[in-house]
């Protein structure tokens, strides 16, 4: 990836992070979209697995800092998701919107599973309900929003042909 592509990817990444802290609380949905996971996935497919793991770790710490009781849980989840997304990018990140949507859905759902298990705040039926109902819903919304943003930000996200 050349310098221009890196800058565009960085701008896209920052836009997603800002959206996570502006649009997400403004909407306040019960099954919210996760722009941090989208940012991580879009960055992870452009870097090596080690770098993706570091990015995931940092993003996880950022999200955990606003919920100190779960400090570390988000970092673990993001690290795994980032590493896995970068490792599997050849499989998933093709030029296919449906495949991309599934990629976002899977990334968000895996993140939620890891996060809620690592957080250890929710147990029993509530945990099952969270992981099998609200997390898939949130993952679906995230996937939809991710695809929409991919469509909107295509000029910014497309890899340089040069």
């Amino acid at each position: 990836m050349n310098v221009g592509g890196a800058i565009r990817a960085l701008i896209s990444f920052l836009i997603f992070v800002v959206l996570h802290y502006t649009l997400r609380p403004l909407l306040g949905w019960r099954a919210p979209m996760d722009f941090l996971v989208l940012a991580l996935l879009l960055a992870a497919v452009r870097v090596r697995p080690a770098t993706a793991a570091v990015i995931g770790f940092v993003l996880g710490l950022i999200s955990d800092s606003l919920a100190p009781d779960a400090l570390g849980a988000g970092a673990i989840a993001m690290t795994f998701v980032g590493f896995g997304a970068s490792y599997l990018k050849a499989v998933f990140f093709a030029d296919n919107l449906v495949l991309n949507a599934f990629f976002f859905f899977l990334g968000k759902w895996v993140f939620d599973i890891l996060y809620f298990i690592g957080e250890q705040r929710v147990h029993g039926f509530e945990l099952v309900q969270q992981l099998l109902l609200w997390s898939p819903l949130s993952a679906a919304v995230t996937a939809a929003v991710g695809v929409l943003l991919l469509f909107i930000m295509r000029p910014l996200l497309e890899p340089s042909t040069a």
Partner: protein
Amino acid sequence: MARAIRSNTRVDLIVLTTCIVLALAARALPNTMRDPVATGMRRSFLAPLVLLQERAEKGRQSLLSADAKQTYLDSLSLGSMKAGSLESENDRLRKIIGLGSRLRWGFIPAEALHGRGVRDETTVILSAGSRAGVSRLSPVIAPEGLVGVVDAVDPTMSHAMLWTHPDFRVSAMSPDGSAFGIAQAHLTGATGGYLLELRGVPFRATLKPGSVIVSSGWGGVWPRGIPVGTVLQEIKTSEGWARTYLLRPAVNPADVYSVMILRRDRLAKGLDGVWQNLAQVDAAAQRIVVSGDSAAKNAALAEAAARKAVLDSMARANGAAPLGATDSTRAVAPRPAPVRRAAPVDTNGRRDTTRRDTTRRDTTKRDTVPPPDLPLRPGVTR
């Protein structure tokens, strides 16, 4: 090539393991250490993001509360719109209660029901009838004064003729009884039906604008002292032998909702003291006007004197005689006051009424020796 790939994979795994270990370490931190770490991150490089999130949360709260706020504002606006009418109604009812407490007895409270027909400005339906003691020609009054008279009575309601009716008449006078006349609706001109006129006032009686006119008690329908209106101005009519005055009515018929109907037995006792303060207020207003005129007159005199003094000073400064001074010596020198002699009084106590010019003064030089030709009186020695 394969070695490089294996090396990269090893590095990736090492980094992944490191990140996982660090994350687990963060997860394993005790609460006493977890909070400072999170707080430090929020207060340092995450501060802008935290600020963005706070603003977004506030925006969401505003959006969520917008409907409730709008509903509250609507309710508040509706309440404020009602408050004005409630306040005026409350004021009106307080006046009615005050009138009732002054009347003490012999009245029937009633609601005035306005219709929407053509003649509604001149008649009104009252919510009390003969069962309540209302009879025909019972006066209808409001706290402000005269409203009308009952002209038809049903058992449960009655029909009243307002003062705006063309057939309505009431004998009226000034509170001090100096001017009498007949008050009726002023039906001519653009203000017809909304003003009163006081006709037949004797030519010698003059009413100043602002004077209160009350019912005179003549005629047997209206008791004495009910406010009818206030003098606005004199109007010219073809009647040369009497004056006609335009009155502002004490009661606007459109504002009449709660009234008092006076019973016939109450009329015989009079309404002394019910509107007594009205005459006092009128007298006080007259005194204020008079004192205001005096003050204005004094101020005008003082101003004229000051102006004259300035002109005199200017004239002296120019070397000319002061304005208005012709002969200063004659004008200034006082004339000697005439000396009056005491009139001679005779021994009998009677004044000497003889005119002085008729008596000749004795100009003869008085000698010590009397003239020889004068005879001596007997007993007188020389």
